[in-house]
């Protein structure tokens, strides 16, 4: 879609930027990446009252143009690089009216870049309630920019924003805030001369940031560095004096335009809630209760939609079998592709519920409290309070969580977080655990409310967290710190979750999961189906001949005959051969060649396990839902012992393997992208495989 005007949303974190973005663009948005960096780029389109349309870019929340994390560095790059396709024609700075002073710092920086700018003054309903009187007209006049009061949560003022975008100036009309020349006059002059710049603040920003921006050449960057040496430029000192000057300007501005009541305010509601939620004892009890509730709900709430989707697939598969002529292509489509797909689709409810929980926890402000409570504990094991968010997000999926670790400013803390996040039980392990637990753990209640199977699953979750913490501690001892870590973080006030945002997040995450996992699963099931349906040499022909003999059909029932014939074929297929090749390696873990096939295919993605098991055990090409697969696996007998193949020992050994092994191509890819080196994903893959093997081995021999 081609838009007439490009608009960037800029603002502090927790100012309602995303809410405004959603209100402006509706579902008409997509999430991509900024070229060259892995920062989420949210772009949407917004119709304007005059019939034109605007492209809206939601930039990461930041307190200033000086980046403290990777996410924040994109803001200056987009705003300042005229060649960037997203370089905006207009910047909307969203200001939290209840916290004007701090929010205005970013505004004055953006305004000084001389891009057309306007202010969306959010949460004006709250300032009214608190008796804060903002003279918006005077405020707007002093700054020389449109100031539009809105309440993004209540959807108030959104039309005014649309209107203002359509009337926006093409040239920057804002009043200058401070005279930046005083900070480093000679250097600003020299850089301006060298690069032919007419904006002193832009020149100053280049002096600060030239090493990390991509749109200036290396020669230019080196020359700027030389000039800095020449004029003895000290970046931090310059930043400090700039910040002080800006706050002086803001203080003067607010002195004239804002009247705050002098009545001393009682303890805020947020503080009262904090007394309980961050209490020495209750704080942790509540936190763990929330986690427990989350996992129990993921299980119980998803049962109904889960079964519905599974039944739907069975119905479609059955009907397709009736309509389409029998043959290899039908088999591939119906049993291979659809079978594999249903394996993913049934997990949409679980994933949606999980993401709903996580976005509610973040949206209400509770997640920052968890960060606050856990920092000391996490620091002991080499992590950071902020690592809690990726780790909890890891329950959903390691991929977005590893990207989320960008908010951790400290390199070592961030690396350790990235290295251990894939250990946390992600949603792709859910199908594997569910299937195996259902096989060997009785479906019984203990203490009335706790289900034994649910308890086993919770146990796997807790186990994963404990192992992540232990591994983090080991990394803490190995890795060397590059810079000091710090924990300066805003704690937002408690708010009710914005259900619309929760809905957006559920929809967006489920869609991404289905599309990404779907692609992998379809290709894996096709490949697997081919590997399982054909074999080397003329084995298949010989099997056909063997079972065509008369004595065979006398000895067995036709159904029975078909079953034995097919399983002999599977054993002699390419997949079977492959399984047999690795069997000696996995035998000590209690796995046979069939599980071996599933292990191999699972290295693409863990959830493939269920589909693979379905394909391998559904020798008659029957419906591929979990229940039948489960029954087949339950009925499977180890030919050498006569015992059930999936004993408690084998099932738990398998779960241990899935708990530790790095069986996720997407995670490997994202770790590579985030660390920009193959070293880290390689180390991660190696240590996880070793742990997986050891844990499986121990589990199998303990329970055997």
């Amino acid at each position, binding site marked *: 879609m081609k838009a007439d005007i490009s608009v960037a949303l800029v603002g502090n974190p927790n100012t309602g930027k995303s809410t405004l973005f959603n209100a402006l663009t509706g579902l008409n948005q997509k999430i991509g990446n900024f070229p060259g960096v892995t920062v989420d780029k949210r772009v949407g389109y917004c119709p304007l009252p005059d019939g034109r349309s605007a492209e809206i870019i939601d930039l990461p929340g930041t307190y200033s143009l000086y980046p403290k994390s990777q996410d924040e560095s994109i803001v200056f790059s987009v705003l300042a690089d005229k060649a960037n396709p997203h370089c905006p024609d207009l910047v909307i700075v969203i200001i939290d009216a209840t916290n004007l002073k701090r929010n205005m710092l970013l505004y004055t920086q953006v305004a000084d870049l001389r891009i057309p700018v306007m202010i969306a003054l959010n949460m004006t309903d709250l300032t009214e309630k608190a008796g804060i009187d903002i003279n918006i007209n005077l405020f707007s006049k002093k700054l020389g920019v449109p100031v539009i009061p809105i309440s993004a949560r209540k959807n108030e003022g959104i039309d005014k924003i649309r209107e203002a975008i359509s009337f926006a100036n093409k040239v920057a009309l804002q009043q200058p805030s401070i005279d930046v020349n005083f900070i480093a006059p000679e250097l600003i002059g020299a850089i301006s001369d060298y690069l032919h710049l007419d904006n002193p603040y832009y020149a100053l920003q280049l002096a600060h940031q030239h090493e990390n921006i991509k749109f200036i050449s290396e020669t230019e960057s080196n020359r700027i560095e030389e000039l800095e040496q020449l004029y003895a430029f000290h970046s931090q000192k310059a930043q400090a004096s700039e910040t002080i000057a800006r706050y002086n300007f803001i203080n003067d501005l607010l002195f004239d335009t804002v009247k705050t009541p002098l009545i001393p305010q009682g303890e805020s509601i947020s*503080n009262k809630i904090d007394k309980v939620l961050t209490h020495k004892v209750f704080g942790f009890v509540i936190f763990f209760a929330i986690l427990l509730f989350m996992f129990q709900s993921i299980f119980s709430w998803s049962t109904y939609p889960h079964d519905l989707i599974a039944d739907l697939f069975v119905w479609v598969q059955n009907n397709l079998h009736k309509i389409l002529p029998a043959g290899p292509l039908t088999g591939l489509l119906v049993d291979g592709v659809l079978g594999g797909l249903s394996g993913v689709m049934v997990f949409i409810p679980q994933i949606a519920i999980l993401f709903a929980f996580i976005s509610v926890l973040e949206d209400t402000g509770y997640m920052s409290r968890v960060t606050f*409570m856990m920092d000391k504990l996490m620091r002991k094991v080499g992590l950071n309070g902020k690592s809690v968010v990726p780790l909890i997000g890891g329950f959903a999926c390691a991929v977005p969580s590893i990207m989320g670790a960008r908010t951790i400013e400290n390199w070592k803390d961030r690396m350790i977080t990235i290295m251990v996040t894939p250990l946390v039980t992600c949603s792709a392990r859910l199908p594997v655990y569910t299937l195996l637990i259902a096989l060997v753990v009785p479906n019984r209640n203990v203490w009335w409310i706790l289900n034994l199977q649910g308890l086993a699953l919770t146990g796997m979750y807790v186990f994963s967290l404990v192992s992540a913490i232990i591994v983090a501690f080991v990394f803490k001892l190995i890795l060397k710190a590059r810079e000091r870590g710090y924990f300066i973080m805003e*704690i937002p006030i408690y708010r009710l979750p914005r259900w619309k945002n929760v809905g957006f997040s559920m929809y967006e995450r489920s869609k991404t999961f289905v599309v990404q996992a779907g692609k992998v699963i379809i290709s894996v099931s096709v490949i697997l189906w081919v590997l399982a349906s054909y074999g080397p040499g003329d084995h298949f022909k010989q099997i056909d001949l063997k079972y065509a003999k008369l004595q065979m059909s006398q000895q067995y029932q036709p159904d029975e005959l078909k079953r034995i014939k097919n399983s002999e074929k599977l054993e002699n297929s390419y997949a079977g051969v492959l399984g047999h090749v690795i069997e000696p390696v996995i035998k000590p873990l209690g796995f046979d060649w069939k599980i071996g096939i599933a292990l191999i295919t699972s290295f693409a993605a863990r959830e493939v396990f269920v589909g693979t098991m379905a394909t391998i055990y559904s020798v008659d090409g029957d419906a591929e839902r979990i229940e039948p697969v489960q029954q087949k696996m339950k009925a499977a007998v180890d030919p050498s012992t006569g015992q059930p193949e999936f004993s408690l020992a084998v099932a738990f050994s398998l779960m241990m393997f899935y708990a530790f092994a790095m069986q996720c191509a997407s995670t490997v890819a994202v770790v590579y992208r985030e660390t920009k080196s193959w070293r880290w994903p390689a180390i991660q893959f190696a240590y996880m495989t070793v742990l997986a093997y050891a844990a499986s081995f121990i589990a199998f021999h303990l329970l055997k």
Partner: protein
Amino acid sequence: MRLSELLPGAIGIVKEFTDLEMSVKLMEMGCLPGAEVTISNIAPLGDPIAINVAGYQLSLRKQEASTIILQ
């Protein structure tokens, strides 16, 4: 007195910083010389702490708070 020594409930006024790198970050967040601060919360394990400054709540570690000198 350092901010890390301020008692919960007492009001302090920021005078200066002992650490330049930390001061740049703190000042951007509105914690400047002259700003009024109070301790609003202490994490259950004693560290980090939360302070009220510039109209909002900011959390920081005790060690970081010790770089802020109060009047």
